[in-house]
Structures are given as structure tokens and as C-alpha cells.
């Protein structure tokens, strides 16, 4: 008994954790499909759509981190997506306008470029803002609400209200933001014709690689001690305090990271789709992405990504093939997956694999 307090010579881990190569192998496979196969088999229009889904997947990755790992159900992720998108859109608009004013300012009766816009001429500044603005807002909101222990449904509903308020704010400042129309009609993207197939192809590769990098980063984070801590905060925030950690810090960091991811996704979305509008920030798109994450499987980052891509694809497919039934299908899909497979598609795959292993 007393021996336990003397320092036992611990050099080897009593619990063996063999390196699992299945994950990295699967990742490599997906990377090959994404970077080699897809660009070869898809025509430009479809490749563009896939690029769009991948931007959603980046947002979903952030939601997976914040919600799946950290328990923060954020229903306002569209806000950060939109802010990233607007930062990029503002730069593109100014770039297109040259010395003049962006088109919507002209028809909104704005005569001189608002001061807020001026620095966005500088591409470095604009790209920095893609990350800084969503990050700063998330950090501020997080600091305020998490410190006060606002959580669970409160947090979810607050972020939802944030989305609603943000849309109204953007719509109301037509001269500054383009109102409901948002920013559209871009011509040039960093010297390239934004609509040219080659540019779009390049954008596809960019978004795919960015997603890959962010995924690996998020995955490492999830497996780190911080990731464990995040899970602990999710399941017992109050108890974590008695382990000497401040859960508010952990949550704020994670929420900020997820916002930054959404911002990056928004910035990539703009040249790919050619528009950023307040509607993209709203409650519905934000919710849709959360549901996509739930469908893919929120407890695994891969599930979040998978869910977003599948949802994007399903939305396009069904609205093209069965436009009348689309809403029924979408609703039914949510109900079924969330109802029958609370761990999502990844969860189903996981339990199938385990069954096979048990059988073998």
C-alpha cells in the first residue's frame, strides 16, 4: 500500500496504443480521389459545384469541432462564413471597380467610397480580415457568454439570434453592403478571369487543399490533450473547473477556431459561386450545415465533412431531379438520420465495422 506513494519507475506506458494506419491511409485515398480523380471526371460546372460543397465542408469541420467535440451548438456559423465572404467580396468589388465605385454603391446613391471599404483594396489586408473579423467576433462573443456560463440551448439560441440580427444589419446598410443583393458580379480574381474554367479549376484545388490542411489540423487538435479537455468541457464543464482549467478559455478558443474556419470557407465561396449575400448568413443556412454535420456524424470530424458534402450533393441532385419533393425529402432525411442514427453516417459505418470485427 505505502509503496504507491514512492515513485515507481515508470518509463513504459502500461496501456499500449499501437499506431493506427487506417486513418491516414483513408485520408490519402480520399485526397487522391479529390485531387486527381474528380478534376478528371467532372465537367467544369459540376467541379464548381463540388468546390462549393467543399467550402461547406470547411464550415462543417468547424461545427464538428465546436459542437461535436466541444458541445457548443452554434446555429450562427453562417455569420462567420458571411463575414469571410464579405471581406473577400469587398476586395474583389474594389479591384473590379478600379478608381470608380462598386456598381451597387452607384445605384444606392453612395458618392464616395466609405472609409470602411478603403483598406480592402489591399489584398493582404482583405485576406487578413477573412480570418481576423470572424475570429475577433467569435472571440468577443465567446468571452462574453462563456465567462458567464451561457451554454447549451441558451448558446444555441443566442447564436441563432446573432445570425438573424446580422442579416437584418447587413440588409439595412444597402449602400455599404449591397443590401439583400449582397455582392455579386465579380470579374477578376487576383489577376485571373474569375469565371474562366482554369480559374475555377484552380479554385477547386485551392479549396480542396485548404480543407485537407484544416482537417489534419483539426484532427491533431482533437487527439491532443486539448481535444480531451474539450470533450471534458462538453460533458462536465463545472467539473473541469475543479481540475484547474478555465472552461471559458477552452470554449472560446475552440469557438474562435471554428469561426475562423467558416470565414476561410466564406472567402473561398465567393470567387467559386460568384456571390455573397445576407441570406447565406441567415438562420436557415446555418441550421442546414449543423444538420449536415449531424447527418454525417458529429462526433467524428470526418463525419462532419462527409455530411456537408453529401448534403450539398443531395440538395443539388434532388432539387434538379425532384424539385417538388425536395423539401419532403430533405425533411424526411433529417428526421430519419437524426432519429435512427444519432451518431450519423459515420456512426453507422463504425457499428458495421465493429459487427464485422466481432463476427470475424
Amino acid at each position, binding site marked *: 500500500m505505502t509503496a504507491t506513494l514512492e515513485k515507481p519507475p515508470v518509463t513504459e506506458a502500461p496501456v499500449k496504443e499501437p499506431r493506427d494506419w487506417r486513418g491516414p491511409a483513408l485520408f490519402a485515398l480520399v485526397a487522391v480521389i479529390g485531387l486527381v480523380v474528380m478534376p478528371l471526371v467532372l465537367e467544369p460546372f459540376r467541379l464548381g459545384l463540388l468546390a462549393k460543397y467543399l467550402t461547406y465542408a470547411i464550415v462543417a469541420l468547424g461545427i464538428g469541432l465546436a459542437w461535436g467535440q466541444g458541445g457548443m451548438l452554434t446555429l450562427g456559423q453562417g455569420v462567420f462564413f458571411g463575414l469571410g465572404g464579405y471581406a473577400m467580396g469587398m476586395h474583389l468589388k474594389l479591384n473590379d471597380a478600379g478608381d470608380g465605385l462598386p456598381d451597387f454603391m452607384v445605384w*444606392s446613391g453612395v458618392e464616395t467610397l466609405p472609409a470602411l471599404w478603403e483598406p480592402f483594396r489591399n489584398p493582404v489586408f482583405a485576406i487578413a480580415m477573412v480570418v481576423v473579423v470572424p475570429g475577433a467576433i467569435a472571440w468577443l462573443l465567446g468571452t462574453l457568454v462563456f465567462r458567464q456560463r451561457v451554454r447549451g440551448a441558451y448558446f444555441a439560441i443566442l447564436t441563432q439570434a446573432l445570425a438573424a440580427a446580422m442579416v437584418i444589419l447587413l440588409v439595412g446598410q444597402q449602400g455599404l453592403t449591397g443590401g439583400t443583393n449582397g455582392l455579386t458580379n465579380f470579374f477578376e480574381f487576383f489577376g485571373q478571369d474569375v469565371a474562366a474554367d482554369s480559374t475555377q479549376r484552380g479554385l477547386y484545388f485551392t479549396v480542396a487543399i485548404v480543407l485537407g490542411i484544416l482537417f489534419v489540423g483539426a484532427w491533431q487538435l482533437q487527439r491532443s490533450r486539448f481535444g480531451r479537455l474539450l470533450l471534458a468541457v462538453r460533458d462536465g464543464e463545472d467539473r473541469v473547473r475543479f481540475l484547474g482549467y478555465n472552461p471559458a478559455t477552452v470554449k472560446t478558443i475552440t469557438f474562435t477556431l471554428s469561426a475562423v474556419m467558416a470565414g476561410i470557407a466564406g472567402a473561398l465561396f465567393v470567387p467559386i459561386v460568384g456571390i455573397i449575400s445576407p441570406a447565406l448568413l441567415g438562420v436557415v443556412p446555418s441550421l442546414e450545415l449543423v444538420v449536415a454535420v449531424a447527418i454525417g456524424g458529429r462526433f467524428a470530424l470526418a463525419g462532419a465533412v462527409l455530411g456537408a458534402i453529401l448534403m450539398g450533393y443531395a440538395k443539388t441532385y434532388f432539387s434538379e431531379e425532384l424539385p417538388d419533393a425536395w423539401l419532403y425529402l430533405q425533411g424526411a432525411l433529417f428526421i430519419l438520420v437524426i432519429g435512427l442514427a444519432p451518431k450519423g453516417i459515420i456512426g453507422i459505418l463504425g457499428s458495421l465495422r465493429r459487427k464485422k470485427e466481432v463476427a470475424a
Partner: protein
Amino acid sequence: GEPTESTTGGGAAAGGDTIKVGLLHSLSGTMAISEVTVRDAELLAIEEINAAGGVLGKKLEPVVEDGASDWPTFAEKANKLISQDKVATVFGGWTSASRKAMLPVFERHKALLWYPVQYEGLESSPYIFYTGATTNQQIIPGLDYLKEQGKTKIFLVGSDYVFPRTANKIIKAYAAANGMTILGEEYTPLGHTEYSTLTNKVVQAKPDAVFNTLNGDSNVAFFKQLKSAGVTAESMPVLSVSVAEEEVTGIGVDNIVGHPVAWNYYQTTENAANTKFVAAFKAKYGAAKVTSDPMEAGYNAVYLWAEAVKKAGTTEVEAVKKASGGIALERPEGLVTIDGETQHMYKTARIGIIQPDGLIKEVWNSGEPIKPDPYLKSYPWAGSLAS
């Protein structure tokens, strides 16, 4: 960008024994309320044209897509109709926002969009035909009417987006030049339903009339709450530019009877083409259905395009554009002529009063079709608006 071979608008669609045309409206989301009826009218026109032998000996084949009340989706679906389905032309949109989102897609691919709703002007894309009214065919006649009625103190109420804001800018310029006073200008978000405060503001300002550019469901809440605050068409008429027969039902006739509206067409407009249109529409979709201005403009769009294709002998976009100028057809609203220069229509402005039966009775019209002037170049007071 340089259009690739496959995306050159128009040509490819005429290949088989049908001609594909795209119909792109919101079939879901907030705007579905309005846009579904426009799609229905367009489908009716396609059916009629096919029954009459089609265009260039080929039947029209509609490809319907859902814009889902979401502007980026409009852009995506427009792209899909053009690059995948290779449609000859697209009829679509309602809100100006959806049009602004689609505009770059059509310009890039040099494809054609027919846009069927009244709008704020200040636009003239070479790849869009505007079959609804521009401001000088609706807003300005509406103002002329109010002035004529001696209503000089006006309160402006609108939804918070580009059409109402631009319309109100024009109204203010008009008022300044015509001795009218604007007592207030209020915007509410799309889908807003709480109008008691706004009503209080309006009542407190004691205007002669209200100029209403609210869109969609907000109109219902606005008129219901205005009515319960004791405002009537006699005490304070509200002139609306986005309330047609379709919306009257939803608002409740009670709540809006006697108020004026400004459009180019009413179900009650009397001419042979309209008698036929209303009968055909009710036969296809039910006797209880009403027809309205945007529906008629959508219905017209299909006919006008078909006429231009016939004249050009091809669906090829540049040829169709070139052939379109000067095409004149007797339509339910009267004579409609395409202005080749702006690709807007000559349209007759009509002021109507909402009747207890929910229909609209015309009380004033411009006598002849007004030449479209999207940039209001012929109005000296509007000089500063379109820079």
C-alpha cells in the same frame, strides 16, 4: 469569361426536335408565394404555343428549376440551365436580388433571361429582357395619380431591399420637383409582421397618403394592423406597387378595399387577349385562381421570345436579340412592344382600386403604352439619380 463552345447560348438547344427553355423561379421559401403563380402562367404560355405548333416547327420543352428564394441558388441554377441543359432561354426571377445574382451568369455565357416583374430600373443588361414595368411605367404614374388627387403629403413605407429603397429615392426626387412633401420614410425587413409601431408613426405624421413598396407577406400584416388602427382608404389611401390580385386574398379584402394600386395589368382589364388568358388560366389551374400583373408579364415573356425566335428563324441568342426590337403583340394588358435599345417593353400604366370582390378596378390609365425609360433620362428632376 470567354464562353467556351459548349456554353454559347441558344444554338445547341435547337438541335433535337424540341427546344428546351428554362423556368427558374422560387418554388420553395418565402418567395414561393408569388413566384409559383408566375411559373404557372409561363407553363400555360408554353402549352398554348405548343398546341399551336410550337416554334420553328419544334415543341418547347420546359426545364423547371427551383431558385428556393435564395439568390446564390438562382445563380447556380441559371448556370446549370445554361451549361448543362443548354436551354435556348430562361424565364425567371422575381426579386431584384435574384435578378442581380443571375445577371453575371447570363452575361458571361451570353445567354438570355426574361425577367417578368416590375422593378426599380437603373439597369439594362444586354442579356436580359424586362417584361415587367420599369419605374416610369408604374411608380411615376402612381405619383402622378396621387398628385392629381391632391395628395401632397406622403409617407413612404417599404421593405428593406434594393427595389423599395431605389423606388423611394425616385419618389423623393419626384416629390421635390412636384411640390409634394415626404413626411417619413420607413423600412422593415422582408417577412416583418409587427406593424403597430410603424402604424403609430404613420398615423402621428398625418400624411395625405402612403406610398407602399412593401413586398410579400409583410403587406398582409401591414394592412391588417393599419385597418385595426382605424385607417381607411378614405382617411388615408395607401398606394401599393407590389400588391396584386393574388395578394389581396391573403390580406383579406376587408382590410384593403378601396386602396389604390399601380400596375400595368389587372384581371379585369378589358380586351380579347385578356378574356382568353383569364379563361385559359382558370381552366388549367382552377376557377378560384386569379391572374395578376407579374403572371401576365411572365406569360407575355414566353410569347415575346417565341415571336422573336420566329422572326430570327433561330434560337441563337444574338439573332434573337437583334430580331426582337420592335416586335409588338396584343397582350392581355394591351399592346406590348419590345424596345430594342433597352430590352424593356412599352407598357400602359394603370391605376386601380381594390374592390369588395377582391378584384381591381382600373380608374386611370396612361392612354397609350409608355416608352420604357429605365434610367429616367427623360425626367429632368431625375438627373442626379442615375449617375
